[in-house]
């Protein structure tokens, strides 16, 4: 029963014992005195003298530093991003949603409407509580108005609060995920570093070539 297999196992576990750990602390990282001083940009002695309260806290292990979780740009988060200017209220997203959790009510807009204003949105609700983040609504959006968000900290105490309304979408931080939006990756847009200010940036900007248009509209008819 006792051979070389067991000692080898002990060596492996000891090797892992000495490795740095692979987990991450979230939402904040606990720092000691040295970490807190480094965070404040001083050396520990300075920190101890200048900010005795904070240093005591740090020694007691209560000082924390917020942690940014490493995420991919395509992360499908639940803080949806939405550009009202781009939306035509076509309700493609609502039709494509496997769970039917997107509710859209639209009314005809003014007669002399600009592009994208021919329909006015009255209601645009996404029930995040039942959403499964498949991203099909984003995939279905023909004008790149709806994007998956990169944030995910939307837990609420009441289930009804999980419904994202139009106003909430409109006011939310514009940090769209690159999910199904290859143009973001081409433009080098990083949702974790910057916000998207201009709704024009969210578009696909792809123009069909003359030959393609001709093929589609002339040759095939």
């Amino acid at each position, binding site marked *: *029963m*006792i*051979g070389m297999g*067991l000692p080898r*196992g*002990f060596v*492996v*576990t*000891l090797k*892992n*014992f000495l*490795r740095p*750990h*692979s*987990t991450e*602390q979230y939402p904040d990282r*606990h720092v*000691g005195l040295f970490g807190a001083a480094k965070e404040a940009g001083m050396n520990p002695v300075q920190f101890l003298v200048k900010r005795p309260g904070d240093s005591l806290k740090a*020694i*007691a*292990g209560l000082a924390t530093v917020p942690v940014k979780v490493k995420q991919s740009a395509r992360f499908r988060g639940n803080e949806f991003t939405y550009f009202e200017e781009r939306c035509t209220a076509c309700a493609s997203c609502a039709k494509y949603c496997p769970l039917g959790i997107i509710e859209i009510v639209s009314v005809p807009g003014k007669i002399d409407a600009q592009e994208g204003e021919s329909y006015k949105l009255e209601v645009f609700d996404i029930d995040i509580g039942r959403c499964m983040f498949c991203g099909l609504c984003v995939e279905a959006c023909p004008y790149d108005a709806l994007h998956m968000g990169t944030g995910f900290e939307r837990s609420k105490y009441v289930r009804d609060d999980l419904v994202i309304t139009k106003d909430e979408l409109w006011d939310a931080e514009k940090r769209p995920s690159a999910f199904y939006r290859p143009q973001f990756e081409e433009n080098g847009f990083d949702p974790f570093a910057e916000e998207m200010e201009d709704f024009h940036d969210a578009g696909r900007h792809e123009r069909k070539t003359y030959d393609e248009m001709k093929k589609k509209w002339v040759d095939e008819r």
Partner: protein
Amino acid sequence: MSAAFLDNSLWRNVYCVLAGESTECAARDYSSGLLPGGMEWLAFLLSALVVAAIFANAILGGVIVLIWGERRLFGRFQNRTGPNRWGPWGTLTSVADAIKTMFKEDLVPAEADRILFNLAPVMIAAPALIVFSVIPVGVGTYVADLNVGVLFIMAVTSLTTLSVLTAAWSSANRIAILSALRSVALLVSYEIPMALALVGVIMLAGSMSLGSIIEAQAIPFILVQPLGFFVFFLAAMAEMARAPFDLTEAESELAAGYLNDYASMKFGLFFLAEFIAELSTSAIITTLFLSGWKGWDPIPSHLWFAVKLILVLFVIIWFRMTLPRLRVDQVLKFAWKGLFELTMINIIVTAVLIAIWPEPSTTELWIMAAINWPVAIISIWVVSKLLGTSAYESPTPSESAPVYPVGTETLPANAGVQGGGDK
């Protein structure tokens, strides 16, 4: 008051501060006590209570630290951080856990035997603490130096199983009963090699008192008694139901075994007892095999003891983290067919050596070590050969011949699907 009793510095300090015109204290430069003369019996009683309280609280405090340390070490072994939220490096986690445990609802199953159900946690926690009464944790720092100390330890530790059985029986749970039966089987099997492994140590020291055993260790007995240490270590792991012998609790099989129906502080007491057992086992190993508090001079003896204790604890945790669990029959087979033989070899060899050098000096101990190590290695190797499974030959992918005919025959030409479609 006996003079031997006052060799214990811990007792003496407390006692002599209390006792009045005691001659023993006067002989040791304690001028006078707090109590009037003739009240030595009260001083004795009070000092006994104080010493016991100090010890018990020190152990419980140690357990709190141990739980935290063990979880941190688990984390390190498993490449994660371990508890880190509460207090510096998570040191207050166990305190928070203890408070949480106390405030939980105390559930008693409807079918439980209430008296026994409530008695079992006490029955398991008390003996675990009592073990420490004979262990010297520093020069003259102990509760009592029994002249049958080793025997006392063996007797008290085996009480654990009784309370496990009580807990399982009273909670009227089939899984708990299974766990308790395993616990009893484990105890019956491992108590014997555990006791016999200590025979070598007792022979070398010529005494069963732990104080004398430490005194006798001119060199740590782990060097002189490798086989005894090996057997005792494994048997002790089994005795406190630690991996790879954690059959009683086996969470992947029995969920929590005998603890299934316990909640709140009753569960807390079981949990506590388990960790006290771990602490006491390491203390016993430290005392018997690592020369206890002995060390080089400038460093105080208590620190030596603590360092050795932590070392042993680390090894126990390392074992627990590394090894998968054995099955019941394998565990019992290992005790009866493996460890028992090894202890017998150890006793015979040690007896012969003691017959040659009845009162071994340091040099003679070194010679004994030189003889015992080869004996230990050879005998462990032989026993493992006799017991172990043969090496498992894994076939390389290309060499293995298929045993079942697959794709050996061909269909008639007309059988396949016509008009394409490959399946």
